[in-house]
Structure formats: structure tokens, C-alpha cells
């Protein structure tokens, strides 16, 4: 079963751009550490041989040397700071997805003891993830219960998924193959069972995998079974549309095209509308109240909307372009597969 897994030698496969960059820093630190250790071990061995006890040869009285102290304080410090600088830059790359990755966002929900993964086009997988090669993708996740960690050694990437918040990472796989997916934060009995496979496919193969369940998005409403489609249904079911709708400009702020823009908050500050911001705005709206609006939005608890559903709602909000906000009197969206433009009445009527 694991024969297809791509492993070799003493290093895991380098299956993403980031893996190559991460390994370079690793080699650098290794080289410096081997050098430093060699100096210490060399000196140690030299002293143990040269200064083993000999009859009649007394020990020297050496109390110290400020010059040497300075030398072996500053040289390690310089090297350590270089590790810091390079490490921070590497980390920076790891947490800042390129713009195109935001278009392809995968969602993962970890729960004891499995991974539920959802493609931006709506397909779902359990413990497996198919990705197209040479495409930057973002992956965001949360947990339903305890803290887990979505770890892919071949991409040199992992991130904790924490209940109560959304965290994310991104990859650009550059090598076809099948790679390990591990849970990398102890989560109980099935921690070691919570493993899976990441399949990186060529572009054609990825399309082929998607065929049969591929959706097209037309019009201003998602109709394709994607997370946004699910999210739109919830937008109505949870009565969000009562305040956030096309007609009312005074009851609630518009939600069109707000993702990754700066929002003015009461108190004079601004805040970036990230996934976490959107999530908090629904779970804990009193945390950041938009400047110029009354604090009347109720908080939605887990009993009202689960984490998975919340991801879908957020996905819908992120998909709203100017003019996309529904009217209060609209109801169910078109069923999956319907090729409707929204100038027509949606199938099923108002």
C-alpha cells in the first residue's frame, strides 16, 4: 500500500517549492553546527590526548582570556542571528500565500480522528487530498474538538488546527506523487490513526479526477454545490439576509467585496478583514464593531452554526462581488447543475 509513497534516503521528498527553500536553510544550519561542533570536538580530543596526566608535568594556571570570550560570544551570536533572519524570512513565505492561492482555497476540518477536506469546487474527501501540480493553493482549517495539526512532511509544512479559530497554510506542489499526511498534535487515542495521503497530480490528471463532479459558476449566485453554495443556503436559513441585504443600507454593513480590505472599527482603529475577522464577526460580533454602526448583531454559537457550516458561510461572503448581495425576499438558490442566469427567477420560485 505504501509502495507508491515517494520516499528516499534520509530526506523526505521535496514536493513543493517551499520544501526546497526549507531544506536550504536546514543545510545551512547543519553546516554551521557541524563546523562549530567539529571545533569543540577537535579541541576536546586534542586536550584529552595532549594533556593526559604525565608524571612530573604540572598543569598550567590559566584563568581566562577576555579576548577569547569575546570571540566565542560574538561569532556564535552572529551565526545564530543569521539563523533567525533566514528563519523569519522562510516563515514569512510559509504564512503569506501568493495572490493566486486565495483563488484556490481548500478547507479542512480535523476531528477525532479524521480529516475532512473540501475542495473549492465542492468535492469532499476524507483523509485524502488531490492537488494539481504547479498550482499555489491555500488550505484553511479548524477543528471540531481538540487541537490537531495538518502536517505534510513532503511540503515541509504543518499548521495547528485549533477549535474556535481558523488557521491556514499554502503550498505549491512541484512534484507528482503520493505523500504522507500526518496529524502532528497529540489528540488522543487515534492520534496515530489520523493519517492520510496527499496526491499531487498533473494538470490533466487533476482535471480528469475532477470530471464528473466539476461545477461551473455562472451568474451572481453559486449554483455548483461548492462551499459558497452551501454558505448561501445558510445565509438565508440563519436570517443573515434580514439585515445584510440589497435593500437595507442602514441596518447592517454591506458584505460585498470586503475580504482582505481594511475595515474601520469603533475606537479609531482599522482591522484587516481576514478569515478570522469574518469568523469573529459571526461568532463574537461585539469584539470589533464597525465604525458608524450600532452593536446589534447577535452572536452565532456553535449550536446554531457548526464550524463546517461557518466555513461555508465565510466562503460565500468571500465570493460576494459588488452587486451580489441578495435581496431580502430571495430564497432558495438554484439546485446543483442548473445553468441559470439570475435575471431569470431561480428554479423553485421566490
Amino acid at each position, binding site marked *: 500500500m505504501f509502495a507508491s509513497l515517494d520516499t528516499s534516503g534520509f530526506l523526505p521528498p521535496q514536493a513543493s517549492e517551499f520544501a526546497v527553500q526549507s531544506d536550504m536553510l536546514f543545510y545551512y544550519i547543519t553546516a554551521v553546527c557541524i563546523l562549530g561542533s567539529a571545533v569543540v570536538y577537535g579541541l576536546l580530543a586534542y586536550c584529552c590526548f595532549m594533556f593526559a596526566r604525565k608524571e612530573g608535568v604540572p598543569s598550567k594556571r590559566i584563568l581566562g582570556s577576555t579576548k577569547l570570550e569575546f570571540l566565542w560570544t560574538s561569532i556564535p551570536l552572529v551565526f545564530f542571528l543569521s539563523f533567525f533572519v533566514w528563519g523569519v524570512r522562510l516563515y514569512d513565505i510559509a504564512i503569506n500565500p501568493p495572490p493566486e492561492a486565495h483563488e484556490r482555497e481548500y478547507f479542512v476540518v480535523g476531528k477525532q480522528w479524521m480529516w475532512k477536506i473540501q475542495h473549492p469546487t465542492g468535492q469532499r474527501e476524507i483523509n485524502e487530498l488531490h492537488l494539481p501540480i504547479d498550482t499555489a493553493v491555500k488550505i484553511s482549517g479548524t477543528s471540531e474538538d481538540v487541537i490537531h495539526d495538518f502536517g505534510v512532511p513532503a511540503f515541509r509544512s504543518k499548521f495547528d488546527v485549533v477549535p474556535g479559530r481558523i488557521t491556514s497554510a499554502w503550498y505549491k506542489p512541484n512534484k507528482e506523487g503520493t505523500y504522507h499526511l500526518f496529524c502532528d498534535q497529540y489528540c488522543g487515542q487515534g492520534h496515530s490513526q489520523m493519517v492520510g495521503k496527499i496526491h499531487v497530480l498533473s494538470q490533466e490528471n487533476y482535471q480528469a479526477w475532477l470530471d464528473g463532479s466539476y461545477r461551473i459558476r455562472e451568474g451572481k449566485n453559486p449554483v455548483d454545490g461548492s462551499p459558497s453554495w452551501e454558505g448561501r443556503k445558510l445565509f438565508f436559513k440563519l436570517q443573515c439576509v434580514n439585515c445584510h441585504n440589497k435593500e437595507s443600507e442602514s441596518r447592517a454593513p454591506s458584505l460585498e467585496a470586503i475580504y482582505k480590505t481594511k475595515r474601520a472599527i469603533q475606537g479609531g482603529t482599522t482591522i484587516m478583514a481576514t478569515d478570522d475577522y469574518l469568523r469573529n464577526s459571526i461568532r*463574537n460580533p*461585539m*469584539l470589533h464593531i464597525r465604525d458608524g454602526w450600532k*452593536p*446589534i448583531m447577535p*452572536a452565532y*454559537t456553535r449550536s446554531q452554526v457548526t464550524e463546517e457550516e461557518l466555513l461555508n458561510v465565510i466562503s460565500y461572503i468571500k465570493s460576494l462581488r459588488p452587486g451580489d448581495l441578495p435581496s431580502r425576499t430571495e430564497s432558495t438558490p438554484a439546485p446543483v447543475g442548473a445553468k441559470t442566469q439570475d435575471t431569470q427567477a431561480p428554479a423553485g420560485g421566490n
Partner: protein
Amino acid sequence: MAANLKGPVAHHFNNLNQQLTTVRMGMWMFLVTEVLFFGGAFCAYTAYRVWFTSDFEAGSAALNVGIASVNTFLLLTSSLTITLGIRAAYAGNPKGLRNYLLATIILGVAFLGLKGREYQLDYQEGLIPNVSVLTPEAQKVVNERIAKDPGKADEKVYPFNENLAVVLHHEKFKGEPFVAYDPFRVQLFFMFYYSMTGLHVLHMIIGLGLLTWQYILACRGFFDYNARYVYIEAMSLYWHFVDMAWMFLLPLLYLAGPHSASQALEQFKVAIGLASGTH
């Protein structure tokens, strides 16, 4: 200062001065650990206070600031009495020492008594998360709500949340209803309230035990050697720390929400039975 001090020196010390300074240092080191202990709790509380400001204000409004105010006065006075006790021990005044120790103990016991009454009132008002049941008044409110809208009969009722609503309804500040709050976050506030005041009470009980022990020793003439004043001093350092912890707890917990002096007085009168209130 050490010139006219007399007292036995323990076997492992070289002289009296070494013994005195060491005892003092030991107590200071211990208090450092206590600062870190309470400090950890304060830090966690502060984090949540910053994140959930309005909810914590609501929770604080539900606390009995009347009792807290009187308790503050009691505790500060007890710190005074024990400090006077040090002086008495140093000056070789055993009767004064006994009186001051006794006064400190009495004031401390009074504090605990009022604190116990406060906890009792909290229990009566049904403000213990996940433990309390609905108070009669809250039950009435719930029944009215269901009567008005039978569709809500199936909704889960959280006793603490209902009880809290009743209490806060009475705690209108200058006639204004309380701002929107999340009762679950107020549960968090109350969890901090019980933990932090509970830890404080525990420290007070230990302190009172030690004070009683010192009082008994004083009655037996242990402190007739005036060099032994240093143990009273060590005790007073601990007692002052307990006092200081309270001086931080008071504003953090009790003064987070709006209160007024008349409200505090009213609460205190109810607490000691001079007035009957809805509390």
C-alpha cells in the same frame, strides 16, 4: 537596632543578626512565589477582560460591592494591627502583642464571615455556573416567556443565564438597562471570580491559622525574647501580601462594572439583614 535584641540563636546560625536577616529573606522569597501565583491568574483574567469587556462589566455589576467595600476596610485595618504588633514585640510588650494579634485575627475572621455571607448570597441568587438551578424569580420569567411564545418551550434553559438576567435587571445603573452581553462569557467571569476570591480566602484561612498559632505562642511567653519579633514581622509580611492581593482583586473584579455608593450601601444592608431586598 540589633544592639538591644535578646534571643536564642538556632544551632546552624553563627549569630543573631544572621538569623534575623535570613528569616526575613525567606519570607520575602516565599512572597515572590505568591506574586507569581496570583499574577498568573491575574494575567489570564486580564486577557479575557480585554477581549470581552462588556461581558465582564456585566458580570462585575452582578457582584456585591457593598460587602467588598466593608471587607476592604476590615483587611486594611488588620494590616495596621499586625504592624503595631511587630512594634509591641520588638519593644518587649507582650500584652500589647497579644492584643494586636487578637485584633488582627478578629478582623480577619470578620472578613471571612462577610465573604461567606457573600458566597451565600451568590448561591441564593443562583449565580454559580453549571451548579445553580433556577431561582423562583427566574423561573417566573422563563414561564412568562414560554407563555408568550409557546415555540420556545423546547429551547434549552441555562439556569445561570436566567438568574443572571434577573440580577442584572435589578442592577440597573442610573435606570439604564444593561448593555448587550453574552451570558456564557459572564459565566467565564464568574469562574474567575470564584477562583480568584477562593484562592484569596484559602490564603486568608492559612494566615489566620498561623496568626492563631502565634497568638498561642505569645500567650506562652514565646515572644518574651524580643529578638523573636522577627517572626511577627514575617507573619505581617505574609498578611500584607494577602491584603495586597485583595487590593488588586477589588478593582479587577468588583470595580470593572458600574456601581454607585448608594447601591453598595443597599447591598451591604441587605447582606447583614438590615434591609430586605430582591437580592
